[in-house]
């Protein structure tokens, strides 16, 4: 590289790498001494932040031919280093559990257990954002050919996703609402710190409905604990089914729900504490044996069957197939109605999305309670716009391929 070029482009990969590494390590040092990032204190209105960023990028474009430090952000060194250091921060995030630790633990001191809140993550994300943003805005004012449009679609899409995901996160609200079938309307939710937030709408739980799969019959190793991954075989207990498990052959004679097993007889009950029971016919050589297996719960232990070789047959608690909350709602604007909210089918009300979160796992389908998750995210549509641009850009860049092939 000549001296003229070096004056214009003083950033080779090594120098850029060293500067990036210094900033990254500096960020870790700040974490170590306990200095919090600005985002901890809140950064103010999103549009103000975005405006500052856009103005900065426009100024960079205007001075792009005069200042080498600005030109750096379009250099290959900036592209690779910004990606590399953001990737390093993400690797730390993807490797260490993100949960609180004892104050003196070294992982906590350098922020490996709260990476999203750290200087090195936020600085590397900002670095990447500046590189992408500057490249996008630079090309925005120089669109000449189709490939420029494809470039913009990809880079602006990613720019939108990062900006609105990062800056918009402070305005995102996530609440939990705890409902009970015997309770009246609830118009508030709790955030992650237990603070109550009042809402402009209210829900009442009419009924919590849970449908289960047939329980599974499983053969476990000779172990007093029933750990699922020590199962050798498992199959659903469907009446009439013939099941082979190793050298054993079974036939499912009967499957009963909501029962109790009392001295080899069934008592039918319809209340919490009831279990599932399956009657099996076991063929072992010339012998045929019939017996009951039952699931267990907090009231009654499971009925198992020990086999000759020390293995044991168990009836596992059935897994949930569907669960949903039958809700009535009304709003301050006098709207009312009834809705069923289940997993993957949220309900939208007054800008909030309502999700079926959980229920009383111990009581299972007898649960009189339901937990809803309420999410308010005003910037989601902007992030989605970015997603669509990214997908479009990925499709369009195939046209560059076909043009290259033709040429």
């Amino acid at each position, binding site marked *: 590289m000549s001296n003229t070029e070096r004056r214009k482009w003083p950033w080779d990969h090594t120098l850029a790498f060293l500067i990036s590494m210094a900033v990254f390590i500096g960020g870790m040092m700040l974490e170590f001494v306990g200095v919090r990032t600005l985002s901890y204190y809140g950064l103010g209105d999103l549009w103000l932040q975005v405006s500052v960023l856009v103005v900065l990028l426009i100024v960079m474009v205007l001075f792009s031919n005069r200042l080498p430090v600005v030109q750096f952000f379009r250099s*290959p060194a900036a*592209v*690779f280093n910004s*990606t590399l250091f*953001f*990737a390093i921060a*993400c*690797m730390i*995030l*993807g*490797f*260490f*559990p*993100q*949960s609180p630790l004892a104050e003196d633990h070294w992982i906590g001191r350098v922020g490996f257990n709260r990476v*999203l809140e750290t200087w090195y993550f936020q600085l590397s994300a900002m670095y990447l954002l500046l590189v992408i943003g500057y490249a996008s805005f630079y090309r925005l004012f120089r669109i000449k050919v189709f490939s420029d449009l494809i470039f913009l679609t990809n880079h602006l899409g990613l720019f939108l996703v990062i900006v609105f*995901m990062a800056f918009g996160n402070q305005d995102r609200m*996530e609440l939990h609402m705890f409902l009970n079938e015997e309770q009246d309307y609830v118009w508030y939710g709790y955030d992650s710190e237990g603070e109550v937030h009042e809402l402009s709408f209210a829900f009442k739980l009419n009924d919590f409905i849970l449908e289960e*799969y047939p329980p*599974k019959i499983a053969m476990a190793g000779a172990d007093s604990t029933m750990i699922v*991954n020590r*199962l050798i*075989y*498992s*199959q*659903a207990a469907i009446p009439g089914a013939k099941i082979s498990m190793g050298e054993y052959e079974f036939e499912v004679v009967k499957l009963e729900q909501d029962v109790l097993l009392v001295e080899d007889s069934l008592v039918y009950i319809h209340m919490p504490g009831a279990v599932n029971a399956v009657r099996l016919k076991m063929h072992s050589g010339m012998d045929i044996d019939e017996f009951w297996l039952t699931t267990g719960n907090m009231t009654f232990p499971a009925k198992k069957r020990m086999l000759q070789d020390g293995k044991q047959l168990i009836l596992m608690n059935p*897994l*949930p*197939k*569907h*669960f949903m909350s039958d809700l009535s709602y009304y709003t301050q604007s006098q709207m009312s109605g009834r809705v069923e909210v*289940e*997993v*993957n*089918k*949220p309900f939208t009300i007054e800008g909030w*999305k309502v*999700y079926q*979160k959980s229920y009383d796992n111990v009581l299972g389908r007898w649960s009189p309670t339901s937990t809803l*998750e309420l*999410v308010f995210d005003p910037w*989601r549509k902007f*992030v*989605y716009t970015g*997603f669509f641009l*990214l*997908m479009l850009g*990925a*499709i369009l*860049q*195939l046209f560059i*391929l076909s043009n*290259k*092939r033709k040429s």
Partner: protein
Amino acid sequence: MSWYQFPYVVVVVAIMWLIGGFLMLFRTKSAMLSKIGLSLNILGLGVLLAFVLLYWLDVERPPFRTIGETRLWYSVFLAIIGVGLYGFLKNKGLLIFNLLLALVFLLINVLKPEIHDKTLMPALQSIWFIPHVTVYMVSYALFGTAVVLHAIGFFRNGRSFVGLNVHQVDVVVKVGYLFLTIGIIFGAFWANEAWGNYWAWDPKETWALLTWLGFISYFHLRKFHPDKIRLTFVVLLVAFVVLHICWFGVKLLPSAAESIHLYSGS
């Protein structure tokens, strides 16, 4: 057709592919042996596809839930891509290596059998389930093919990349990138519908982003330094390793305890 018949299917497919691959590589003036070999390879793929279809009907749910099922789809898509690209590129080595790689994953499934059942947990009962996983497995298979192409170019030319048609690799990587991008975004849409957050920095999502960044780095390296083929291969390999960490390595990491993306049985 249940998973218990799977080892027998693998034996049949393996015999077809190994004989088919041998016949295609056999140097002969007659093209007949090569055509028979190709037919055997396609027939082996047909047997595998038939098993997948019958297994799908048996479990009465889309077979995308367990790690074994995703490995099965990976093998299927590797084979389809190998056969498909052979039609365009007439590259016997690519087809055979793709089928061998597919066989490796089928054998892994035989050696690590899993308990399969018909249950599909509520979170997986979504219109996004099949598109998200399918698109992802296609992208993984394409990236595997790209690595195979690069490796063939390396070993065939005296451990140098002279003579490697890098443009072919670029094509495969770009199509793989398209599917990967769509797969990540479909996952974001699904996450938002299921639990209200399109990106929660779950370990699986984080490693998916790292995979995506790896292949983005590949493109930028090809753009800025098109002559650095060896470095390109290294970046491709690193991105491929990260892909596997995302696919099934996440459960081995300390962060796995917090992940909601672990395959059932993990």
